[in-house]
């Protein structure tokens, strides 16, 4: 057991992927910030926890999507699935007066199952408390923002906020896990399992 205590058993979750782009029909020249929010039992072992993307402009055509293709690469180690990492994304861009304002907050859990996943995260921004406030904030380019973009990954205290949805962000994840099953957490999706089982006999008896 001495060894066990020295090297506590952990499982690893490796996240590759990218923030592919966003769909904000009315806005342009946006960039996004992301950060991972995770519980106490989680620790990033490699990769970047936070990042800011380039500013993306919309294409010439009528295509509404903004493309960032901003890579994510991070590996977590953890002892406990509680506090599974979430990615909190916030999108910023200039308003009509050129002030940098927030265009959306959103968060999504990193998928639990290994494999490729695409998540579309609906985005929202906090609303001004009053109409006058809204006007002045629009005028001065200082819209209400969350004190912390990580707020959107938490449940506590959200009841006091009012938000308006705008746009979506698409994130693709490629998840690789290690030792999850060893610790008793079976997160393999059932299709993948059955596919793997189906494949095994065919390998055993090749044509």
């Amino acid at each position, binding site marked *: *057991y001495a060894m*066990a*205590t020295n090297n*506590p*058993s*952990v*499982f690893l979750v490796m996240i590759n992927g990218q923030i592919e782009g966003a769909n904000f029909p009315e806005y342009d020249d946006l960039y996004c910030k992301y950060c991972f929010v995770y519980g*106490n*039992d989680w*620790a990033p072992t490699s990769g970047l926890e936070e990042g800011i993307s380039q500013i993306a402009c919309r294409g010439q055509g009528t295509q509404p999507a903004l493309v960032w293709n901003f890579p994510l690469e991070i590996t977590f180690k*953890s*002892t*406990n699935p*509680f506090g599974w990492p979430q990615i909190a994304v916030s999108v910023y861009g200039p308003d009509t007066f050129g002030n940098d304002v927030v265009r959306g907050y959103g968060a999504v859990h990193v998928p639990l199952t290994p494999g490729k996943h695409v998540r579309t995260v609906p985005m929202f921004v*906090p609303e*001004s*408390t*009053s109409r*006058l*406030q809204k006007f*002045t*904030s629009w005028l*001065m380019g*200082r819209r*209400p*923002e*969350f*004190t*912390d973009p*990580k*707020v959107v990954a938490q449940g*506590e*205290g*959200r*009841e*006091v*906020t009012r938000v308006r949805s705008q746009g979506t962000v698409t994130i693709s994840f490629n998840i690789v896990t290690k030792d999850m099953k060893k*610790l008793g957490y079976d997160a393999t999706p059932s299709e993948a399992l059955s596919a793997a089982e189906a494949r095994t006999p065919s390998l055993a008896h090749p044509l």
Partner: protein
Amino acid sequence: MASSDLREKMRKKRRALQETLGRVREDADTQVLVATDWEMSKDGERTAVQEPSGSEEQQVATLKQTLKAQRMKRRKKLVEDTPAETPPEAATGASEVERGPRAGESRTPVAAASSSRRSPRDLPPLPASSTLTLSEGPMKRRMVEKLKAARSKAESLLQQEALAEPASRLQGLRDRDPLTRFDTEADLGVRRRDDGAAPLVGRVTFREVAHRGWRRAEVDSGLPTAEEAYNFFTFNFDPEPLEEAAEQKKERRFVEDRGVEEEEEEGGGGGEEEAQVEDGGEGESGSEEEDKEEDAEGRSEGAPLVEDQQGELFIDETAQDFLEVKKAEYLGYHSRVQRESEVLFTPSLRTVPTSCKVPENMQPRYLEEEGLYVGERPPVSLANQNILENRILQQDEAKKWFGDDGRVLALTDPIKQSSTRPPLFNLEEDLDPALQTVYRKALKTRHASRYVAGLGETAGRCQLDVDVSGLIFSHHPLFSREHVLGVRLVQLYDQHLNRQHRNITGLLTDKLHGLRNAVRNITDLHGDRGLNVVMRQRIAEYRLEVRNTRRLRDVEQEKDRTLLKSTLKVWKEMKALREFQRFTNTAYKLHLRKQEVNQSRDEQDFEEEIQMELVELQGELEEEYQRKISQYRQQLEEWKAWRKKQKVSSKKKKKKKKKKEPNEGDKDDEDEDEQEEKDLGSEPPKPEPPERQELSLLEQQVREKAARIRRKPGEPILVPEVTLSGNITPNEQCPRGEFARREDVARRSLFVKVLYNDKEVSRTDRRPLGADFRVHFGQIFNLKIANWPESVRLQVFEASGSSSALLAEVFVPLPESTVLTGSAPPQELEFSSSQRVTFNHEGVGSDVPFSFEADGSNKLTLLTSGKLSCCVSWAVGENDIPLAPPTSQTPGGIHGALRQTDAIACIGASGLSDMKRLSKWAAESRLDPNDPSNVVLMQLLTVASSGEVQVPDYFRLEQLQEEFNFVTDEELQKSRRFRLLTLRSQEVVEFRNYKNVPAVEREVSEKVFQDYEKRLRDGEVVDTKEHLDPHRAVVAKYLKKIRESVMNRFLIAKHHFLLSDLVQEDEVPSIGVLGLNIFKLAEPKRPLKPRRKERKKVTAQNLADGNIKLLVNIIRAYDIPVRKPHPSKPAVASKSARSFTEAFVAAQSSQSALHGNDWPLNQVQVRPFVEVTFQRSVRQTTTADGPNPCWNEELELPFSAPNGDYSTSSLQSVKDEVFINIFDEMTFDITEDDRERGSTVHTRIEKHWLGSVKIPFSTIYLQSRIDGTFKVQSPPVLLGYSKERSLAGEGGYDSVLSLSEGSFVTLFITIQPQLIPGESVREKMKEMKFDSQEDERLLHAAEAFQRDAALRFPGRPCLTTVIDISGKAVFITRYVRPLSPPQELLDAFPNSPQEATELVARYVSLIPSLPDSVSFTSICDLWSTSDQFLALLAGDEEEHAVLLCCYFLAMGKKAWLIIGTAIPEGPTAYVLTYEQGRYLIWDPGRGQYYGQYDTFCPLQSVGCLINADNVWFNTQVYDAPMRMGFDVSRSKLWKPFFSRAFPNPGLSSVQPEELVYRRVDKVAAAELQDRIEKVLKEKIMEWRPRHPTRWNRYCTSTLRHFLPKLEQSRGRDVGDEHRLELQSMLGDYRISGFPLNVPFSELQPIVEAVYSTGVHNVEVSNVEFALAVYVHPYASNVLSVWVYLASLVRTR
């Protein structure tokens, strides 16, 4: 219904088909194929196609190929041609229902025969379908003919084209015209056909498809469009219809009738068509599977390779053929509009004609015109109404939305015109006291929680039927006398009937006869001789029985007789009464029917009976006699024996008495004798010999009795009969009294209230009280019950006119669950009322004595009474399920047994729970186990007795919880990992933010919990070692407890977020701010005197270690003590005799005289630098010169929060302090070699502590910045330094400084980045209402006062209510009350009140200070009363100030509490006194005072003043004490809380009347002194690990003597004398050192203070140390600790 519907559909279908076929004639191109298929399949022999089916593979393959091609084309065609069919079938699930039979019609046999060939999309055959077509009329026949004609034509056409079938068939298809006519037809058909299940969906999809056809027609350019190509590839490739048809045919030939066949085919053809089209439609999604399916089929036929090849070939071909690049389509506006008009529907605004809305051929009917009330509709604008109607009319069943009048059905306007709530005036004031609301605590009803168990699913299914059928009065106040008699008569008659019905007399008589016969039989059989014991015994038993029975019979007979007699008597009385009063009130009549009897027979019977009885009685008497005789003999014997004994004993006694007379001492014997005498004295009477009763007497008795109770022989049997046939005298003929009575009766009516669980649930109608005093209700109330039935009560009310009175109340027993409606017998419940009622008419009243006799004797008193006939039973629901609560349901068979195991059933299975008793009962009653009616019970018993199933004797709330537990609770509790997780989620301090909880149990080491468990243990045990003083330990523990409770109280608040916590939003700028901003634009970019700018605030959430820095800007210092050369002269003047006046008068002391001569001009007086210590990191400034140095340096210190938790609450609880120490840097030349002096410098640097400033981090955090000049806390004596200013009188500026003594340092401290202080928590606390015992009005006023203050002067603190230690809001003035200080303090300076005042202030300041913000994480200020404060010996500024203020008041001073802000504490409390026409400001924490105009007064602003009577809020422009007036009587300057409008209600104080002080404990103090000294010495040695620490004992003892003097002078300058003294003793030493004075709370702060001076850092090898500790005790264990610390360096 269904069949006729279907028939109708079939007909339509056929019509559509007919038309299609008709069209085929016109352009044969398309439809031919279909027909051909059928034709071929029908005939089965014409073409070569079906010949080889299944015989030769080659042929099959080729055949398939061709077939596929054909089929594909056909399908395509079908898709396009018959779009009408597609949508409802393919798109809506609803239409599948009808597709089934039609498709199945033709497929049924196929399905049966060749299921392998069926496409998976084929519906399973429906068996019912074949019957549909059997009954078709002449219409069908006509159609058959038509079809035949069409088919033959098509056939011929096909044969022409059969060989020339082109490969690119599509070309032809494209040229086709869109089949619009067919579309519309089909549309209609569909519309009509659809049952309305999904009409809209069907139509919409249909339109789309129809559209597709059109579009294609429009854009047709000769090549397939992308859509076409797509469709082509994705459509379903069905199994060959040809073969299918062929097989179908074959099969059918065997199975079905020939005549039906054709019909079916037609239908089937249509169905097939549809089915295939469906497949095409659905195939868009599932075509791939279809293809595969087909492949599989092919393979199954044995030609897989060929099939595959074909598929590939085919695809290659089509890919080339159908791909094309072409321009984007453009639709013209008009065409688009047209297209849209197909899809979209725009309801018109025009009014719909009424005719469309009412059913055909009907005139609208206007109910209102017919005189019916219609009501007013809610107002809807006409346009909207029209739109709605138009929209509705588009729907299929539009008509049902309209009423008879052709308007949309609508409810009447529910809004009432007038408000029903009466207006309430004067809401606030002058409310009628009767209307005043009174608070009552909510009471739980007793039954509220007792819901019927197991109601989850059977909710509301329990129903109790209460049947109130009627009531009869046996007495009513309105009874006339006749009624009374009548009722009595009826009662007697009823009794009679009852008895007759039961016929007890007859039964007993029979029994008697039986018994007699039995006895006779026995005796006859055996004779008297041959009787054995058993027989004799039996005879005796029989005889006993006979006797008993006879007695019973006699009693019964007598009763019968008396009943008859009394009935007759009553009847006679009644008749007499009727005659007397000359009218009749009642219809009662008694008839006596006489039954004649046979005289002789009767007599014989009578005589026989008597004789029989006599014989028996004789026997009994004989027996009795024998018994008595034997008894007599026995008694006689006894008596005789007694007599004999007595004679003997009397003789003895006489002897004894003679003997014993001389010696009287022997008393025992005497007693004994007396006892004996007594025994003997109770002489038994001499028994009398029993006498035989005379037989004749006996006979006489028997005959008498018989005459009394029995009918005389020959007397006819009288049978009474009461009828209601009598006539009642009409009202007019009655006298006035009777008339009035009858009138009264007519006025009365009765009703019954039904109360369930003491709640009225319903009441019966009112029924008039009839003249016969019977009321019939006949009402049944169905009570749907949710609560457990506790009681059912019926209340009988009598009403006359509008008023009603409760007559009586009847409790109805709750029925067993087996008592069900219908089978339950009605119950008669008697009721009575003790109400006294009198009348002045003929009514006899109630509880009133009355008499029937003329003389008024024999009075009767009757109470109102009667019988209520009702029935309460459980209702029977549908399916004969009793609607009784489940608990009392009888256990039924297996179900019942199951309920035992079922946890849910256990909840209420009270009927089953007592299994033991049940089994006991079953054993006792010897149930027949074979009786089928006992099966259930026996099964239950076996289950129960086998022990497998046990009824739990507990009640479970979450029955299924156990099923979901994966481990037991104990195991879970044992799990260390679970415990760790739990503790973390509970935010227990040790585990808050605990990282990486191990993944498996074994990796969690026990060590993790050690600290925590230790803390838990320590909570119990008081650790005296840590605290040195047991009292303080207890206090510390107590404080901890309070803190915990407070923390718990505010835990909720911590998790309560405000918007500002989460969202950052700019304030709406007011006009003023805007103006200011504009003004700012004009400001210079780089002003000469820059000001500090407000920085952006950062919330603590997204911070991590290293992000936060503490910025300390040391600007300058004043009045640093200067060094004194060793051989200094003693100072002459002592400042000990300072007076108050000096404090505020700029009195230059005569200091200047002292200085000047000591110092060589060029010598550096002092070289001070500042060292800042915070969280173990140390930064220092450069060294400056002189006593007024200027550094202007910024020091950056890193800050890390405890546990890396940067939440607001965590930051607030940081206890670290910033130490700002001022040192003097001294250099000593230690160059030993004089030759090197020129080239090298070898000096040793020593730093000497001069003083320090401590600022808690929490203060910085809460204030966000500290800016100001602070007084340096320097020791009263600094050895080697002089505090006197040498440069006095240098300039005007200094004269201001000299107002106060001591050194000062100007600082600016802040945190980078600026953290949002925990104000939010405080705000939250404000929102949270504390419970308070204050008057509501006062609280409101306080709130208003505070709000007003905050509005007018946002920055100024204003306190009206504070929270006491139990968390209750208390008005602040209650804290102020004169309290006398310890007497010894007053006695110390009896002549000098000033001294005494200062001493008192010092006493207060010596009570350790413990800021609330640290202990209670600044959640709120808790104010403890002074006695609590003294008991705890810890408190913050408020407590100190309150205590000081109370003392001052007791000492007769004018004193107020100041609520304001000070440096560095922030919001705080000071004390203001008024002395000699001037105001003094006291700092209670330090025991110092300042004049109002003192520059260095730490008090920066004054918010309000408080004394025992009032609170005044500062309404002056300025709040700095220097610039304001303190005269509270000036209303311009101060706004009082209590004014004339709202006078002080005379609030009592929360303070005790008197403070009780504990005596000074000198022994304990001395002990403590030793301990502190020991600990400190150890610590100093510990801090100097690399050097030996030598203690100079001599110096130490000197210092120790000196310390008490310092205490006496309260730290004032006594330094000079002392220094001289020291100097003389230790002339050879260079001493540096100082005494420290701290109030004693714990050891740790003392150690810290010593450490921070850095005395131990002297690293000269020959250094010696001196340490002396002195503890001075004051009352109540307030201790002043002095630590004198000195380092001595031998100079020689």
